């Protein structure tokens, strides 16, 4: 191995000289950033690195990007929606309903220009990814298979080590930071007697003609299983589908990785008594036996064990021999395995300590919420393989989710290695309500990666201004200051999108009556995805707070919380229903008055009070007051929010009713009764 060549670089001068004499021989090319895989996640990271002017290379074993999509899904129909029309012009909003595009500054590189189909063809994805790489000039080394990855310790390196990548030609690449975006490429196999009789999803015929008049057993209950079934539903005698757990419908779980309605034709025929059916059993307890006619019989494994030999189905006792109504007593013509995919750990040296997680996470490498491997600093998992962070929760395993997590990782690294603080907009506090309203109405990252990426608002001293940070990986909240380079000394808000707490789940009826919440005071019971705003007086940094938060809480317990009531149109701009309660919440957290005022009101306050509300301070006093037009002025008088001071006429407005006849001090515009703020509740919390 040519690995040792790297070490002398930092060795004594004499050796350096030696190297200088044989440069071509021994110095492997060194990159700040290496990306494994030119799939969607790899290209997405390459895009951000390129825009930031970083030194990087992408290694791709195939001759073109997106090789996974050249073969998968087998039936060529993507189930990620390509919604070309939303009735809105807002490009950011439209990304909420675009599940295929990668992020870029180039509007031509939107997937909707590549397919007209709502569920597009995989070939269009291949074409799209190719164009994405080419148009943006991403630096991808095609036909380069990285066969082995190991570590080389070096105290000078960014992370105390370099990642050493060796390709199929023995060429070595040295990388300071390694992004693994290789997806899940190894078909999942379950070992049980007779498993060899099953054909894999990856190779089974996709020609329905090959299944005419057959009894088919499909192992697995994911979208690939149903996709396979869908293709042959019309020609088989029946299809039985077998898996460990009951089916999880994505409309009930709100997880796009669960069974999508587009694939669920078999459920329909099953429940409409058309011979097809679903069965639940752990595959590892089963065995498949082949009989003399080449047909397959399913039996619990212990029947086989009792027989103690691996005999054919003809000779051993089968369940139906004792139990003549055993569901799977009919022999099958074919068994198809559709059990999903696993991450390919094989190329990573043990020194990387890239381990798989436990339980359901076995298919994924173990990583932190920052997408960095738990085993090696500087090694990040991107894309589908990073889905352990939000498996069965959010969209991090899919293009429309990981395009945002990749950006978050890029931002973390920009700060870690290049002293670029996490991008933020600093605004006066008067813009607080508006900036939240803007984001919850258009932000696609919050919407797609709900519960994973959240916006963070860091308050400045005395809450006169704030910094707005977008799409921070929220499970890293405790380390926010070190990860972003921004200070959270004066309290913060977190803006997250959430479904109702008991709304999602495989056994949930999501269509129950009264599921919709319409009243602002019931907003906390909203079921559909809606914005939730957490207020923390201090950054919750303790392990206790973050890791051991209350069950079902995505975040540590806040000082105060606000739910913006769910909206059928996901349009949270209603003045009374959405914006007013939000303002009240923010006001009570900050213990200030966030209303806006016309210049005339500010003028009155300026001359009758020693202090001015923030809106007047930051606008009017800086000679940027808002002047009311005549018609608005009329409304103002009618609304009784301001008294008409004209000497005659309109005396009516001075009525003794609640909002009318009061001196400026007690007028509705003046500071209200000293309402107890969140602060005063502090001790009780």
């Amino acid at each position, binding site marked *: 191995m040519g690995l040792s060549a790297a070490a002398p670089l930092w060795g004594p001068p004499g050796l350096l000289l030696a190297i200088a004499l044989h440069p071509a021989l021994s110095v492997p090319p060194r990159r700040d950033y290496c990306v494994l895989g030119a799939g969607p996640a790899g290209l997405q990271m390459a895009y951000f690195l390129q825009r930031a002017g970083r030194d990087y290379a992408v290694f791709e074993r195939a001759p073109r990007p997106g090789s996974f999509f050249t073969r998968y899904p087998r039936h060529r129909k993507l189930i990620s929606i390509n919604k070309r029309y939303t009735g809105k012009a807002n490009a950011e909003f439209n990304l909420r309903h675009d599940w295929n595009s990668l992020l870029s500054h180039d509007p031509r590189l939107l997937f909707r220009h590549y397919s007209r189909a709502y569920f597009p063809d995989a070939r269009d994805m291949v074409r799209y990814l190719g164009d994405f790489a080419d148009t943006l000039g991403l630096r991808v080394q095609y036909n380069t298979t990285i066969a082995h990855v190991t570590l080389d310790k070096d105290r000078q390196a960014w992370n105390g080590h370099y990642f050493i990548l060796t390709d199929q030609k023995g060429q070595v690449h040295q990388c300071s930071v390694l992004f693994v975006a290789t997806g899940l490429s190894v078909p999942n196999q379950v070992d049980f007697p007779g498993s060899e009789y099953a054909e894999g999803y990856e190779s089974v015929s996709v020609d329905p003609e090959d299944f005419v008049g057959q009894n088919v057993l499909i192992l697995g209950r994911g979208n690939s299983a149903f996709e396979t079934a869908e293709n042959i539903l019309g020609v088989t005698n029946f299809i039985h589908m077998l898996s460990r757990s009951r089916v999880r419908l994505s409309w009930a779980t709100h997880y796009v990785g669960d069974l999508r309605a587009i694939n669920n034709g078999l459920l329909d025929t099953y429940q409409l008594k058309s011979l097809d059916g679903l069965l639940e059993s752990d595959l590892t307890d089963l065995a498949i036996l082949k009989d003399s006619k080449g047909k397959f019989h399913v039996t619990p494994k212990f029947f086989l064990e009792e027989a103690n030999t691996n005999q054919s189905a003809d000779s051993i006792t089968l369940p139906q021999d004792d139990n003549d109504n055993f569901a799977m007593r009919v022999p099958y013509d074919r068994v198809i395995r559709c059990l999903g995919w696993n991450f390919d750990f094989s190329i990573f040296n043990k020194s990387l300590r890239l381990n798989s997680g436990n339980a359901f996470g076995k298919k994924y490498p173990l990583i932190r919420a920052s997408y960095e491997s738990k085993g090696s600093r500087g090694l990040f998992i991107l894309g589908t393989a990073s889905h352990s962070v939000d498996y069965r929760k959010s969209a991090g395993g899919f293009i429309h989710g990981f395009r945002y997590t990749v950006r978050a990782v890029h931002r973390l690294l920009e700060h870690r290695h290049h002293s670029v603080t996490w991008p933020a907009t600093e605004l006066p506090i008067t813009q607080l309500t508006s900036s939240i309203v803007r984001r919850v109405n258009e932000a696609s990252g919050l919407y797609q990666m709900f519960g994973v990426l959240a916006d963070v608002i860091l308050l400045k001293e005395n809450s006169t201004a704030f910094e707005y940070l977008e799409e921070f990986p929220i499970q890293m909240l405790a380390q926010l200051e070190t990860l972003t380079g921004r200070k959270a000394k004066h309290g913060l808000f977190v803006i997250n999108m959430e479904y109702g707490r008991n709304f999602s789940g495989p056994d949930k009826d999501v269509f129950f009556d009264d599921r919709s919440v319409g009243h*602002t005071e019931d907003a906390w019971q909203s079921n559909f995805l809606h914005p939730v705003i957490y207020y923390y007086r201090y950054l919750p940094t303790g392990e206790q707070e973050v890791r051991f938060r209350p069950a079902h809480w995505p975040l540590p317990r806040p000082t105060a919380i606000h739910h913006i009531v769910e909206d059928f149109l996901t349009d949270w701009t209603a003045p009374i229903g959405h914006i007013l309660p939000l303002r009240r919440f923010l006001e009570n957290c900050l213990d200030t008055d966030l209303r806006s005022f016309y210049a005339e009101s500010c003028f009155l306050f300026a001359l009758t009070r020693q202090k001015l509300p923030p809106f007047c301070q930051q606008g009017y006093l800086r000679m940027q007051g808002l002047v009311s037009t005549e018609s608005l002025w009329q409304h103002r008088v009618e609304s009784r929010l301001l008294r008409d001071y004209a000497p005659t006429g309109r005396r009516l407005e001075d009525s003794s009713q609640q909002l009318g006849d009061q001196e400026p001090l007690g007028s509705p515009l003046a500071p*209200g009764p000293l309402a107890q703020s969140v602060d005063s509740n502090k001790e009780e919390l």
Partner: protein
Amino acid sequence: MFSGFNVFRVGISFVIMCIFYMPTVNSLPELSPQKYFSTLQPGKASLAYFCQADSPRTSVFLEELNEAVRPLQDYGISVAKVNCVKEEISRYCGKEKDLMKAYLFKGNILLREFPTDTLFDVNAIVAHVLFSEDVEYAHLYFFHCKLVLDLTQQCRRTLMEQPLTTLNIHLFIKTMKAPLLTEVAEDPQQVSTVHLQLGLPLVFIVSQQATYEADRRTAEWVAWRLLGKAGVLLLLRDSLEVNIPQDANVVFKRAEEGVPVEFLVLHDVDLIISHVENNMHIEEIQEDEDNDMEGPDIDVQDDEVAETVFRDRKRKLPLELTVELTEETFNATVMASDSIVLFYAGWQAVSMAFLQSYIDVAVKLKGTSTMLLTRINCADWSDVCTKQNVTEFPIIKMYKKGENPVSYAGMLGTEDLLKFIQLNRISYPVNITSIQEAEEYLSGELYKDLILYSSVSVLGLFSPTMKTAKEDFSEAGNYLKGYVITGIYSEEDVLLLSTKYAASLPALLLARHTEGKIESIPLASTHAQDIVQIITDALLEMFPEITVENLPSYFRLQKPLLILFSDGTVNPQYKKAILTLVKQKYLDSFTPCWLNLKNTPVGRGILRAYFDPLPPLPLLVLVNLHSGGQVFAFPSDQAIIEENLVLWLKKLEAGLENHITILPAQEWKPPLPAYDFLSMIDAATSQRGTRKVPKCMKETDVQENDKEQHEDKSAVRKEPIETLRIKHWNRSNWFKEAEKSFRRDKELGCSKVN
């Protein structure tokens, strides 16, 4: 025209009078005090105004008083003007010239005294005088004589049922004068009459061609019954464009903004009347409850900008006068022509309020400006706005060919933006090339049409060699572009100008066009920032009329304001006195100014905060805004002349004057609490099983029964507004639901942060 109102007192009857129709035959008797008191008769009421001299201000009052003579006479109340002459000293003759009062006597007993400002017009005079007497047994009737052609016929009359207060009488008369019955053929939701403005509901009697005559009679009958309680209209179904439910024959529209109309089927006039009366009744009770128990509702908008924009949402603006930009057109447009771009967000109230002013600018500039007025809705074109570095709303930027875009930093109003656009027709600074041109520039001739917008023109004088000074000045001029006209002159013959205006180079010449004065200011420092400061300071006046627009520029001087409140233009003598003091440096530590209540009516609100009761104008006050908030009033019995002012200022300085009030130093706290969802979540977690029950709310079954709603309001809360079950949607159901939810919003309060 023969209509009016009449007060009937028990045992006494008066003739019909008319305060709106005023013959001028009655004139105000002028008497001496002695003479006046001799005319008083036991048991008879008399109103007397004691005055010393006819000042212009009192003459307005006298005119009004004159007009009140006849109406008051009709009640047997005599009116007189009593001239306080030196020979006869009466205690009713006040001490000060201006502080005179009117007095109401019954016999020779004094009933009440009135400061003249409470008797601001004839109506006020009559009302105040009448109510000063015992009004408990008084009844107010409106005589509808307008409808009667034959004078021998009796006029119909309506008794006012509400307590006799100025407000109620005003309301009563207004409704009496409104047409009895109006015919309409438009969407009842859109109809508005004086009744709605007065807080009264509208009742539409639905009519069709076939039954028109009968319907009209019914409607008239209803109208008479509801006079003063609701407006009644005849709704012509046949010519109606909107659909109303087939069976509905009555439409009820509440006075509250935003409440949908109710479609009713009522086959009896009495049912209509009782429906109206019941619904008015509820409202009152609710309001009382609000006042006593709950205070303001947290679901009610208390942001004046948001509320007014919301109320105005249905008004159509002539948006077509501005060009709406999109992602596709933005760059091409701002590159092709000099443009103003308004970046706004359709959902943001402040931007939408400003959009109206912006459209007003477009209306005013229509066809006259080379500047293209454009706008872009950042709610739609978020990316464009971000690329233009727009992260808050509203933002106005000016794009000119070959220049960096400039953000507008002035007041968000029509006048100031218009000024900015007009002043940007020239370059900054203007390069002046000849002495003659310079003189034209200084005289205001050169930019005749622009000095309307910039009352000061600044000319920088530099010798041709002063390179850095010129650059700095240019930078300053560029910074001030759109706010004040600046020019530069640095030809070889610049000395001619510097000699003429006694300015040693480098210098600024300041031409004040309104005063026709030209000042010179030497430029000691030539840093652009300093020059900007010099110019902005020079724009300040010595004794300005303070307005909503200019207060901030004076406010930032951080000095106590010495404000002369004046009802109209400031008296030149006062002005002279104060300017003299300014020149004598007595007022260096203050910002002297005056406020014209006619231009700045909100000034009355300020005075109300300072004075209780309000003495007559003019009033001179010193407001220590920046340290302590004390307000001192110049004694109103003293004339505003230099000597008195100086004396007062000295006393102030010596701490011998007492403040009349201290401005509250209260912080701006949240106006109302927010929903405490955290507690609600906790409560729900601790008592699991009771799903969907907000804190302290009782769950009661709902019967869709109106009576029960009144009896048990908590019942109404339960039913969620149906947003998804479209099958239940039909118009009347929907409105019922909406109405319920509206009512419910007013009733909650149990689940707030406590």
